[in-house]
């Protein structure tokens, strides 16, 4: 008998740690990112930021000793992304959908999230629709939408740019480009700014040659040229426009994605000084310990500085972890939705004294916007110019705008 008891103790001593390990759940997040082609840089940067965030979250711990894990797949196109999202839910048993660079793909995947009642945290796509006319309760966004950028831009044009009247726009011919222009004009009208549109140009996304657009813009001679491009298109446009002297003849204004680090790095010394830009995250602003730590960690992990897509992914992982901590598990989706609504989340881009938060009605993260001008700064190589002279716009002046959501719903439908 004595031997039996000792044996049982030994077996229990061996099995109990295993049981504890098995009980520690791995909570899976199914992410979709563009990993190849032009947008591949955004996907790769997001992947690095996700790993950093996972390390932080898992080190801090989750209820029941659970661990967060993220699976990443190249999203390719809306149809493919939808099939992967469904597989994530049904086969991989993912508790969250995550990521996505393109608004078109985001719009497709939000339908999967709605149908399966699975929370989808959008981390980079900026089309306002997802937190406006296409809102559904399981969708949350961890980066700003284009309306927030363009509304801040409208304030900047009203207050900081003097003696202008004629304005022209160039942007990619799809929803992202079209929406920015609609939003900026709406913002200017709302602020009572009088202006005259002297040109609207719609090159295709990834247009390699802007030469003829540039000479046409020079002919139209606006006081302000608004650019709605992103990524490599920004690089190509600026490289091609510079020798024409475009930047000396008009104010150049590019506030959703123009100041993204990848464009600053891609242009290097070709970047003109004094042009007005912004991005969803800046490596050199705000100069807070949180932002510096985040940027340093990223550089240490990747050997390069992050583009803005990375911060959205980093914040998104922390949002999910915080919601799980509040609820105590990852299985009660409705409770997780409630936990995310109104959640305050400290982001690297938050200036001293401000904490970003999730607007409970639209599920859009609400953040300050900082618009600057390009100044020489080689502290973040290979960029030779970074943004400086920042003007900061308070978050609650920019979102939510239910008046604009009504307008957008009227224009674009539900």
């Amino acid at each position, binding site marked *: 008998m004595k031997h039996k008891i000792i044996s049982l103790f030994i077996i229990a001593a061996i099995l109990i740690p295993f049981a504890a390990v098995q009980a520690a759940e791995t909570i899976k997040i199914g992410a979709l990112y563009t990993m*190849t082609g032009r947008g591949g840089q955004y996907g790769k940067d997001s992947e690095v930021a996700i790993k950093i965030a996972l390390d932080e979250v898992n080190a801090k711990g989750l209820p029941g000793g659970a661990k967060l894990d993220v699976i990443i797949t190249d999203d390719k196109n809306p149809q493919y992304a939808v099939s992967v999202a469904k597989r994530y839910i049904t086969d991989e048993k993912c508790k969250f959908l995550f990521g996505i660079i393109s608004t078109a793909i985001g719009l497709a995947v939000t339908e999967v999230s709605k149908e399966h009642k699975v929370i989808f945290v959008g981390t980079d796509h900026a089309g306002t629709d997802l937190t406006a006319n296409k809102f559904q309760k399981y969708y949350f966004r961890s980066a700003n939408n284009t309306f927030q950028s363009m509304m801040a831009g409208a304030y900047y044009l009203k207050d900081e740019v003097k003696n202008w009247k004629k304005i022209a726009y160039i942007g990619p011919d799809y929803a992202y480009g079209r929406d920015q222009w609609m939003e900026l004009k709406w913002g200017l009208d709302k602020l009572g700014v009088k202006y005259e549109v002297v040109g609207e140009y719609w090159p295709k996304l990834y247009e390699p*040659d802007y030469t003829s*657009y540039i000479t046409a813009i020079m002919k139209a001679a606006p006081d302000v040229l608004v650019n709605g491009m992103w990524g490599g298109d920004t690089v190509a446009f600026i490289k091609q426009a510079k020798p024409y002297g475009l930047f000396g003849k008009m104010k150049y204004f590019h506030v959703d994605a123009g100041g993204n680090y*990848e464009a600053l790095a891609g242009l290097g010394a070709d970047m003109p000084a004094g042009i007005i830009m912004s991005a969803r995250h800046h490596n050199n602003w705000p100069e807070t310990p949180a932002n510096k730590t985040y940027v340093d960690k990223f550089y240490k992990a990747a050997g*390069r500085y992050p583009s803005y897509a990375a911060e959205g992914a980093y914040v998104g992982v922390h949002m999910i972890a915080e919601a799980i901590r509040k609820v105590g598990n990852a299985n009660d989706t409705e409770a997780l939705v409630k936990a995310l609504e109104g959640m305050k989340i400290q982001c690297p881009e938050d200036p001293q004294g401000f904490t970003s938060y999730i607007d409970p009605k639209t599920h859009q993260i609400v953040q300050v916007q900082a618009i600057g001008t390009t100044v020489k700064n080689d502290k973040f190589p290979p960029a030779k110019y970074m943004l400086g002279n920042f003007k900061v716009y308070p978050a609650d002046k920019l979102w939510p705008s239910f008046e604009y959501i009504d307008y957008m719903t009227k224009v674009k439908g539900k």
Partner: protein
Amino acid sequence: MDINTFIAQFLSGLSTAMLLFLISSGLTLIFGVVNVLNFAHGSFYLLGTYFAYQLMQLFDNFWVGLLVGAVGAGIVGMIIEFLFLRRIYGRAQEGAFQLLMTFAFILILDDVVKFIWGTEYKTIPKPASLVGSLNIGSVTVPTYNIFIIIVGLLVVLFAWYFLTKTDTGKTVRASSLDRIMLGLLGTNVPMIMTLVFGVATAMGGLAGVLAAPLRTVTPGAGVEFIIDSMIVVVIGGFGNFWGALLGALIIGEVLSFGILWMPELATVLTFIVMIIVLIVKPEGLLAKRAVGRK
């Protein structure tokens, strides 16, 4: 429209056209001689750019980069033709095999570039002598754009001389007309195919390096203009070198003046031109009826 606007827009169109021509001419040459519709042509443009980038990291000299980019793309082109494409010539369903194989090379070469050089945008600066701009009257034209126009014209002159005045050029033209007969006359046709493939892909690489200081050097950049190049080739006539020049000039100028006059429709205009050509002269503006072509 005043004359200055006309000149500015015309020169913009011309510089666009010359880059389009440099890319499309290789595409059409491969189709005309080797009878392969090379969907991966853009990948050689990309390879040329990255070879040049790599060399410029070592030597910091644009001209060395230009040479190495073009030659390197040509060598890779010849290897691919010799090791892979040659296996499918003359097979039943050759067209489908061509499509699959060249499309596969788009994906493979794009990923090779990504693995070696990463996804970050790379920069290839203009040579110092070509920075800045010239003023023609009151029209400003970037020096580098003028350089591209000149290179395009030089390629046209060289191609004209090579194809019409040299024996090798005549052999190349003959191989585009009747490969079997040429082989029976004792010419090493497979070698001609490999060489033409190499020259054409080198032209793709050359275009890639020339365009790099104006564009974004990034994986994926090679596939973006393949549609425009196809339009150029369709308008000019598949396999017709001079057709590629005419097609590129038409597309460059239509796009340029379209942007000025009706910017909302500018990108559609090129397709409208292609549709008109396909209705009026489906074989392309400069193509003759294919007689005896193998």
